[in-house]
């Protein structure tokens, strides 16, 4: 147990309310979206005393208004995952601050949701138990948590697989359970670390559509979506940020002007999409080549 978790119980976001009361409260007035400020953060890692420290992120400053879907793209090793860890509070930055709704993030906050790249479902718990976990941690009674989890599993289309263990589900299904498990406690900011990169292309497109639909339904929260797939980034988000090769610095910030609702299977044929893709790729390509230390590819005539 090298990670020491020092969490005083803290005020539960539910304050002991029953789920029915919470839904009623939320239906009346959704909580005000919080502003996410990433203020000049630098993240340095020192894997062992013998090896030199390396800087994963350098002087990154981003301001994200509440309710915006932001994608972060960049070459491998540019610090995208490190950025998410810093924002979530799992690994606070070496220098600089992350503020959520004005408050500095120093440790894991209950209103943050994180969907990891690898499969993080507990393998010794069924799908239903996995989804109900977050609610149990926050003090909901077992029966109420189970009912709510059942609802969410049905919502992601896995109502028939409540009692299956993760090893009995396919990769796409496990991802959907992970999404349900995160959204069940209605986080006000959603962090996603290349969630669909392990899936095949068709499943990926369908999952992206499903995610956007869910996102619209549950209230349009702030999303920070890390991916290496530029098409996915532009197709899903309102804003695309480009990070340089390590040490990661912000080198591009583009607004995506496509109308919603979008279908990822069709949006890539849109004219605006293609222009945006070319513009951002021009930035990204240099960084990708730099990261892989290769010479520029010969360009075909434009």
């Amino acid at each position, binding site marked *: 147990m090298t990670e020491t978790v020092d969490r005083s119980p803290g005020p539960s976001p539910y304050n002991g309310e029953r789920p029915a009361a919470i839904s009623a409260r939320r239906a009346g007035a959704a909580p005000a979206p919080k502003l996410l400020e990433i203020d000049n953060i630098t993240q340095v890692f020192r894997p062992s005393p013998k090896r030199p420290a390396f800087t994963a992120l350098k002087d990154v400053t981003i301001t994200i208004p509440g309710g915006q879907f932001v994608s972060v793209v960049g070459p491998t090793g540019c610090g995208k995952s490190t950025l998410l860890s810093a924002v979530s509070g799992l690994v606070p930055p070496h220098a600089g601050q992350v503020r959520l709704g004005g408050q500095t993030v120093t440790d*894991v906050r209950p209103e943050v949701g994180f969907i*990891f790249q690898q499969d993080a479902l*507990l393998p010794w*718990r069924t799908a239903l138990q996995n989804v109900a*976990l977050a609610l149990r941690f926050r003090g909901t009674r077992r029966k109420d948590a189970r009912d709510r989890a059942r609802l969410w599993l049905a919502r992601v289309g896995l109502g028939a697989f409540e009692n299956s263990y993760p090893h009995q589900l396919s990769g796409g299904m496990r991802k959907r359970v992970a999404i349900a498990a995160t959204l069940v406690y209605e986080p006000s900011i959603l962090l996603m670390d290349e969630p669909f990169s392990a899936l095949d292309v068709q499943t990926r497109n369908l999952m992206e559509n499903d995610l956007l639909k869910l996102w619209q339904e549950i209230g349009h929260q702030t999303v920070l979506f890390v991916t290496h797939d530029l098409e996915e980034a532009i197709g899903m988000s309102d804003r695309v940020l480009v990070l340089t090769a390590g040490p990661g610095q912000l080198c591009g910030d583009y607004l995506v002007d496509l109308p919603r609702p979008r279908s990822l299977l069709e949006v890539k044929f849109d004219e605006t999409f293609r222009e945006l893709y070319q513009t951002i790729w021009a930035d990204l390509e240099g960084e990708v080549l730099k990261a892989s230390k290769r010479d520029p590819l010969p360009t075909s005539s434009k």
Partner: protein
Amino acid sequence: MSGPGTTSVEGRPDSSQVEDLAAGRGAIAPDRSRSRWRTPWRIPRRRLAILSGQVALAIIVLGIWQYVGTSSQTEALVISTPWHVAQYLWDFASGSSEQGSWSDLRVTLQEAAGGCVLGVAVGIALAVLASSSRWLGLFASPFVAVVNALPKIALAPLFILIFGANYQSKVYFVAAAIFFLSFYNIYTGIRSIDTLYLRNTRILGANRRWLVREVYLPSIVGWVAISLRLSATYAIVCAVISEYLSANQGMGYVVYLAQGVNDPTVVIGGILIISFAALIIDRVIVRVQRHFTSWRLR
């Protein structure tokens, strides 16, 4: 459309079919050209062949044993015969044998079980303690490595010296042997818990108490269940060996006595009884293990 194997509308084979039949191609009756003999019961043929071979081998081995055992007095003194061993097993089972009874088996299994439980409990406790702090783990690791390398069974006389030649000394000896086995397994098990699960559970809002309950405990239970099978067989072996050395009851004592009076029947019979018991316990544990680790792929 007519072709091989079909009949025309009237129900009589037409000229093309007659030609085919004459040439040996196709048939109106089903094709039995390949031998597909099925046994009256549901065992497929190949399996039956293997089974017959296995039974035949067993019979041959037993036959050789019986022959050698009855061929001369000296041989009978050394290896006995299957018939005598069977008689002894029957006497043992019905409780009428003077050398060995169910209570002996019970004592041996009790020593094994008691030592196993004690060893696993202490193993879990110390493994949790050692993995809770990195420095503690580093501090303890050379000592653990040295003691792990010692052949535990060689320590049996030491336990008899310290605790005396009684029931407790055997339980403690078994516990000590099992402790090292389970401590190491569980310690590595705890340290190998994927940090991904820890991070994810933290994000979902777990405090330390929940973390232990939801991530560490199921992991430990899983590892214990898996190492239980090995621990059980090892415990029985240790119990029997410590009884060989000094005891006044138990299956190991029975075998030791018989060896002292050159009675191969009871030696072989006693070993067989211990083996059967170990086999049954192993099967039971496999069932239990499957229940507790149903979430693993194996």
